[in-house]
């Protein structure tokens, strides 16, 4: 049993410490006159701390069964910023830290491509800070701030190879619309604050369900508008169908480890925030019930379109990184399909299973996609080209990486016994329970189309005939081992899935059903109870 004080003492200083490390990185590079090693060690320290902290927080939350609340500066919810961690965001934060660890290690090998590696590590740590901040926070405005920390690091990393015109162009398009999206989220927060009167998530969840003053239709339409604006921002960040246009440009143009972080982790943030808003904040019993279900149906349709479009576009690609980027769009679509099961009111079991499937899919996709981007980086480094024609047969020189890549592709395609199979199975099963057989069929169709794209990449890289002989580069052994360990984790998670189901089920339950515990844990910290303070709130 993990003691509560330990979990709290690791959770609270996490993002502040990471921010300090971010600003120490360029300083250390100058002081120690080492552009690669010192920043790398700092980044590694940061990511190791976040791995330990997020794992212990997860263990505590899972064992105690109730959310963990950290009050910054001791201020109670609504008046101060709080971090509130239930099984859902504890799981996602743990995933983020653990996937970030191989990415940082890989960056050290990859850093011969960087001219100023210290700035790269600065931005990468900033990205990690933003990711953890968005996932852990229990305050909707703090989510905005952390989303901006995350976004500006991501823009900077996409434009990192600034001598490449394509990278600058992709970053400019991503950043321009990204700023509009986050501003829209800020606007939505203002409207929520005007209508409901708080930006704390737990209080919003409670007030949207029980406040009598919110029965006014004006307030309801205002909140609905705010929900629409914030969902636009979140779906932009996670590249759901009409907002996916930036991803196939931005993700491939970034340095390869960053592509892994963007495709594996950053899109999760949008999915996470959408889930928080549509289940915890405005659930089926809230003031938006009815409208919310309509929104979820729209998201379901967009998810299906996203899955199909991503899979189809994958077939047309010659560039391995663009192929992987379109596969990200397809898988984000599948995760949204699972997530949008909340419109099935009356089928609580179905919603629970489908949402658990969506969470599993996020986990499966993150690990597999990070693995695939990093192994494609090994091949691209060997040949100096991203074109599948030039990559023919290069996998033969790197057998371990090739095996890892095949496992990653198979997991994405959904083969037994990899975890990617179980995630799709759970989503499909959830819809079956509710009697909607069309959705499982669509998931199978999406998987079938995307399987062709995966096969194209595997056949070209591993089984193709080399056009010119490619030498195996030296000093890559430990990178291959790291990649293989990631592939192994996909198999292990799949084989042990029977024993891991309670984890995903608990995460889904905390999101879908246990909103009361989420609210109560935060309200416990308000001195004298909420009713004493309500007159002073809006």
């Amino acid at each position, binding site marked *: 049993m993990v003691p509560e004080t330990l979990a709290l003492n690791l959770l609270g200083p996490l993002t502040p410490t990471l921010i300090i490390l971010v600003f120490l990185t360029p300083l250390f590079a100058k002081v120690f006159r080492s552009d690669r090693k010192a920043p790398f060690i700092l980044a590694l320290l940061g990511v190791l701390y976040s791995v330990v902290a997020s794992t212990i927080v997860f263990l505590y939350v899972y064992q105690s069964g109730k959310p963990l609340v950290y009050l910054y500066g001791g201020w109670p919810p609504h008046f101060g910023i709080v971090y509130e961690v239930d099984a859902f965001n504890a799981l996602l934060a743990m995933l983020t830290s653990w996937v970030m660890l191989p990415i940082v290690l890989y960056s050290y090998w990859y850093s011969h491509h960087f001219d100023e590696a210290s700035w790269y590590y600065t931005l990468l740590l900033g990205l990690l800070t933003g990711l953890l901040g968005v996932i852990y926070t229990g305050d909707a405005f703090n989510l905005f701030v952390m989303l901006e920390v995350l976004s500006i690091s991501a823009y900077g990393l996409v434009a990192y190879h600034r001598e490449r015109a394509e990278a600058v162009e992709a970053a400019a398009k991503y950043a*321009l619309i990204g700023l509009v999206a986050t*501003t829209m989220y800020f*606007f939505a927060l203002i409207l929520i604050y005007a209508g409901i009167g708080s930006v704390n998530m737990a209080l919003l969840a409670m007030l949207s369900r029980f406040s009598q003053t919110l029965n006014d239709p004006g307030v309801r339409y205002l909140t609905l508008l705010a929900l629409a604006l914030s969902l636009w921002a979140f779906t932009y960040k996670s590249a759901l169908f009409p907002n996916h246009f930036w991803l196939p440009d931005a993700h491939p143009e970034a340095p390869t480890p960053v592509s892994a972080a963007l495709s594996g982790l950053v899109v999760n943030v949008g999915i996470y925030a959408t889930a928080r808003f549509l289940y915890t904040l405005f659930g089926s019993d809230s003031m938006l019930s009815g409208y919310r279900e309509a929104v979820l149906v729209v998201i379901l349709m967009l998810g299906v379109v996203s899955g199909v479009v991503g899979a189809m576009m994958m077939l047309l690609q010659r560039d391995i990184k663009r192929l992987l980027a379109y596969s990200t769009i397809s898988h984000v679509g599948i995760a949204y399909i699972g997530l949008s099961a909340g419109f099935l009111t009356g089928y609580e079991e179905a919603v629970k299973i489908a949402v658990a499937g969506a969470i599993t899919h996020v986990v499966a996709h993150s690990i597999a996609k990070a693995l695939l981007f990093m192994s494609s980086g090994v091949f691209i480094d060997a040949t100096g080209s991203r074109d599948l024609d030039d990559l023919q047969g290069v996998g033969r020189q790197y057998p371990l990486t090739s095996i890892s890549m095949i496992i990653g592709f198979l997991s994405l395609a959904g083969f037994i016994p990899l975890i990617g199979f179980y995630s799709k199975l759970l989503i499909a099963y959830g819809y079956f329970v509710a009697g909607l057989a069309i959705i499982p069929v669509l998931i199978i169709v999406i998987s079938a189309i995307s399987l062709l794209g995966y096969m194209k990449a595997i056949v070209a890289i591993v089984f193709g005939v080399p056009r010119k002989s490619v030498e195996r580069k030296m000093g890559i052994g430990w990178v291959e081992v790291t990649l293989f360990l990631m592939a192994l984790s996909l198999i292990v998670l799949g084989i042990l899935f029977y024993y891991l189901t309670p984890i995903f089920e608990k995460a889904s339950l905390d999101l879908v059903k246990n909103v009361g515990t989420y609210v109560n844990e935060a309200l416990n910290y308000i001195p004298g109870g909420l009713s004493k303070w309500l007159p002073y709130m809006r």
Partner: protein
Amino acid sequence: MEPTEFLNLYLLSVTIASLLANVAISLYGVFYKPHYTKKIIAVSILSDSANTIAIFIGFRRWLSPSQPPSVAIATNLSREGIEKFANVGVDPLPQALVLTAIVIGLAVTLFLIYLGYMLYCHYKTLDMREIRRLKG
């Protein structure tokens, strides 16, 4: 209705309407103006309009039309006076939010301007119709 009250209400409506029009115009600018600098200007107009709306939210109950915003001034700093003021005074939270948003907006805008400079170095133009090396 008193003339001053009417004037207040009228001016408030005009302000809110023009702010919302600002939002609409800036969105049009971001998506349909071809020039990169104009897009950046449109985004800053957008964030400034959102910030101004946030400041207006701070004046309590401007949503209900019968009460235009009025600024309460804390004169009595006794316990009761502060308690009374906390009920009617201008809400400081939106101002804190706006302060944060302004700083963030400044940083991102600066970064966008730098990207514009790099774009110009590569393409010798800032017309987004000509900057199309990527397929999208």
